[in-house]
């Protein structure tokens, strides 16, 4: 076991896609090679993450893997990576969804090499965010995943891509710049308090801060994370970005980027500012509840299938934030599980809408219809993932949602009961989507090819995972138990308002 842990797995995990991205950039002229290279690298990363998951599936308290090297000595910036049960799950999800993203973008024809290079670069950034424990390193990765996404939307997107890309960029940048300020502020306060210059999470924790100062710094972190989540008043970048992004971009955006916000809150926001965080929980719950309904209502009216799925993301992330706000073992575990669930189902739905778009060249619900008669297999998966998304028990989203709801009800019955009412609207918009796309008379007499083996393989694997998580989520909950229990001790008075 010591042999095993001495290998810097986490660095390998981050630098493998980075190297792949550089290779893709160098070989950009040879498109076919780039495609296969991206597939190989993402496959390699996935195998690594799966291996790590298999090795640490029992979980445990503290860091499962930890790396610490000096980096910029004068400022006390260190290269610290750490893996615990919480990041383990998200790292696994990243490894898997990146593979999916590479597979669904097999048909990208413009600047193929650059496309895959950006994908791999983003993978490195996302993995870095989930592993970094030094605030500067974290911020570096945080921005690293933003920029490739900007280009993915702006270059390979649909009609209004420039608008969407800039909107996405401005929203996220506004948040993250404030976070950078807060990071620097925290560092200076730490130094002023007599500590050695450091940006490491463990050193900055437990810093004595005046309440107003703590609130301001927390607010800066919170804004950066909530924009990424996104929670309701700052969510409007998401529908545009999702709608205009290429399929792989939407998959990653929904599946992984949104998770970084919640992860950041859990890993950095709450432990760094426990008092302010505890005070903010009821407000977070309020916003989450508003988000669940607001986004669901808006989703119901969307004419564009992709936009509808995008708004459903906002509603689902509302559930995740509600779980955080409830702040007990069940709810927080449910939130983290729900992040994985949402990544799988929404990723699959975006992939499916992308596949439909490739065939029909439209995503408008009123222009589609009767797909079941044309492409039954694709339609089957569409129905399946829609059901998962609307929270049918036995499929994955239900498992996460019920944990969140149970936990939320324990913390505050009104939260749990109100949020449960949200599932009606989830059913309303998902069924409207299904109705418009699958049922009705078939439109257009053109022959459509059903699923290719590549697409079929992706969807089958996703569907099996959805079933697994829905029926037997225990293996995915096991590594969470201790990290979440440790996390719960961070906030004063257990966070109960």
């Amino acid at each position: 076991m010591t042999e095993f842990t001495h290998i810097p797995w986490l660095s390998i995990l981050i630098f493998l896609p980075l190297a792949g991205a550089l290779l893709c950039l160098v070989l950009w002229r040879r498109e076919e090679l780039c495609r296969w290279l991206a597939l190989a690298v993402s496959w390699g990363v996935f195998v690594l993450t799966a291996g790590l998951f298999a090795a640490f599936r029992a979980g445990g308290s503290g860091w499962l893997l930890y790396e610490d090297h000096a980096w910029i000595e004068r400022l006390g910036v260190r290269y610290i990576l750490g893996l615990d049960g919480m990041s383990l799950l998200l790292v696994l999800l990243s490894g898997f969804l990146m593979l999916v993203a590479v597979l669904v973008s097999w048909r990208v024809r413009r600047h193929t090499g650059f496309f895959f290079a950006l994908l791999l670069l983003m993978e490195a950034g996302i993995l870095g965010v989930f592993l970094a424990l030094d605030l500067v390193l974290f911020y570096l990765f945080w921005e690293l995943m933003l920029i490739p996404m900007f280009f993915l939307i702006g270059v390979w997107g649909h009609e209004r891509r420039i608008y969407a890309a800039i909107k996405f960029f401005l929203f996220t940048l506004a948040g993250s710049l404030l976070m950078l300020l807060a990071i620097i502020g925290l560092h200076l306060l730490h130094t002023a308090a007599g500590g050695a210059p450091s940006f490491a999470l463990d050193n900055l924790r437990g810093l004595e801060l005046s309440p107003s100062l703590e609130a301001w710094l927390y607010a800066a972190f919170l804004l950066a994370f909530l924009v990424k989540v996104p929670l309701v008043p700052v969510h409007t970048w998401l529908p545009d970005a999702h709608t205009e992004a290429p399929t792989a971009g939407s998959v990653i955006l929904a599946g992984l980027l949104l998770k970084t916000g919640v992860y950041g809150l859990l890993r950095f926001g709450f432990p760094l500012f426990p008092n302010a965080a505890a005070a903010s929980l009821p407000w977070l719950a309020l916003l989450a509840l508003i988000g669940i309904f607001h986004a669901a209502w808006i989703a119901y009216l969307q004419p564009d299938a992709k936009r509808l799925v995008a708004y459903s993301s906002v509603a689902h992330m509302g559930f995740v934030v509600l779980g955080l706000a409830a702040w007990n073992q069940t709810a927080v575990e449910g939130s983290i599980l729900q992040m994985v669930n949402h990544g799988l189902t929404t990723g699959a739905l975006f992939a499916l809408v992308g596949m439909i778009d490739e065939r029909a060249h439209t995503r408008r619900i009123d222009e589609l219809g009767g797909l079941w008669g044309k492409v039954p297999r694709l339609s089957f998966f569409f129905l399946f993932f829609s059901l998962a998304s609307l929270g049918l028990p036995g499929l994955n989203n239900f498992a996460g949602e019920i944990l969140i709801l149970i936990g939320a009800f324990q913390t505050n019955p009104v939260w749990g009961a109100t949020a449960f009412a949200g599932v009606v609207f989830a059913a309303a918009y998902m069924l409207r989507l299904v109705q418009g796309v699958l049922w009705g008379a078939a439109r257009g007499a053109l022959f459509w090819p059903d699923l290719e083996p590549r697409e079929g393989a992706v969807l089958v694997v996703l569907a099996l995972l959805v079933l697994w998580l829905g029926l037997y989520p225990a293996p995915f909950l096991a590594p969470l138990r201790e990290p979440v229990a440790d996390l719960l001790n961070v906030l004063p008075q257990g966070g109960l308002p």
Partner: protein
Amino acid sequence: MSAGLLFLILAFPLLGALGNLLLGELLLRRVRAAVAVAAVAASALTCLLLWPLAAGEGTRATLFTWLESGTFQVSVDILFDPLSASMTLMVTLVSTLIHLYAAGYMEDEVDTTRFFVLLNLFVFAMLCIVLADNLLLLFLGWEGVGFCSYALIGFWYAEEKNAAAGRKAFLVTRVGDVFFGIALLWLFALCGTLSISAINAQASLLGSGTLLALTLLLLGGACGKSAQLPLMTWLPDAMAGPTPVSALIHAATMVTAGVYLLCRLFPLVSLSPTGMMAIAAVGALSALYAASCALAQREIKRVLAFSTMSQVGFMMLAVGAGAVSAAMFHLFTHAFFKALLFMAAGCVIHLTGGENDITRMGGLRKQSPFVFWLFLAGALCLAGAPLTGGFFSKDEILLADFARATLFYRGIWLLGTCTALLTAIYTFRLVYMVFAGEPRSHFHGHALPGPMRWTLPPLALLALGGGLLNLPPLYGGKEHLHQFLGPLAGTRIHASHAVEWALAVLAVALFFLGWALVHWRHRRAAPEPVGALPAFLLSGWRADRLVERGILRPFQVLAGWCWQWGDGRLIDGTLEGAGRLCLSGGERLRRLATGRLSTYLTALAWGLVVMLGYFAWRIL
């Protein structure tokens, strides 16, 4: 006999569904149907074989831990006690017959794979509801049947209307599910477990207000699934599905799930007298409402749908009166005769070449005496003809109500009795319009396939003889079902023989009164009445329009407002306004950049002057 074998009851339909899902396209059409039928039949057989396990307290079995987090722990565990065992047997038996019937009914369909997969999946989900030992597994089945019902109502999806009916069914029942779900969350918060037995055991420790709220929430859930007021609008539209689906889901099994849920949690529900009164009131009002609507319906299946709603109302009424055994008794007899009626109606539709409108039928008795006699058997049970299954079960419910001897329950009893009269009237109206007289129009009927014929007689036997299940002592019976259910059977009815006889005579009188009224009216082919009242009843008291105006439109307006004003104007508008402010600011600043060297140099000089001035000021 191992308790683990109980899971085979669940596993067979699931395997059947999976098998057809994965391999169905490769199999012959007959093989697909055979797989589906065999799966359900195997389940029924297993249930019979394992019957001894149900005796007494019943048997528990756990498969694996489904969800575990913190104090929350839910396993996939089932409880095979008298209540669930009898329900299981009924579900599997009726399902087997209906599957067989469906094999014939769907002979000419293209996409039978989907049909049988969904049908098997439905049986699986229904059995989950019945057998579940915890509320979450029950909820899984609860939502599962909802989905299957949705997909089967919209089976002929090419018509937008059918799919829309399915969606309506799913959404309306989901509103009910929310109440059930909240009850589930609350029960967990109160009891720390979701096990049904544990909750029932702890129920007496809860406060009365809490109990009332929980009962009302559970009632809300039951109303959604069982199409009771006010969540009843979906059931008539659900008739858009294939007839076997209507027979299985919307008559025999799924719609009774709400009643079953209340029976399952009866120890909890019964602790709240106000809650019980609410249940009885909802049941009685629904029964009366649906019976009145059934009087004016023109489509054969819609008449049956409203009658289902009405009969389920009777069951709720029974639960409200505390008579679980009476409710279950009526549930069983109703399942038999209503399935029979639907399947016979399917035969009628088949014979008339897809005609659904009873005002255009007539004279079918001569064309197919076989179907006539079987339909009549079902109709007699429904109308409560003496000594049929429906007669005994309905009688027992009314007796239970009457026996409660409070003003409220007497009022409920009166409503129920009126409904019984209406039931006889609409039933005979249906029979007369379809079978009596001369054909009103010309049909190109199809011959009945074998499976559609010989699945009816067994059901007819069950329906007519259903009374034997729970024959009251008055008629020399031993109340088998009541005895078998034991402590689960609810409160005991105390009534003197005189009262029983009086009520029985009243029921018989009402039956014949109804028959006579219809017979008198239909002696000659009278035209359908037109006017405001029939139209009002035909539209189901305009409930759909009310929902449309009162809920759907405000919702759409609200959602549109959220979208256009909330997201569009408020959030994006603010941010884009900030952006525009920056742009216009930039536009003003841009004019300073003339591109001329002299401007820049002058500005430089002025800057120099300012700096020097500042230094000078500092020095002086």
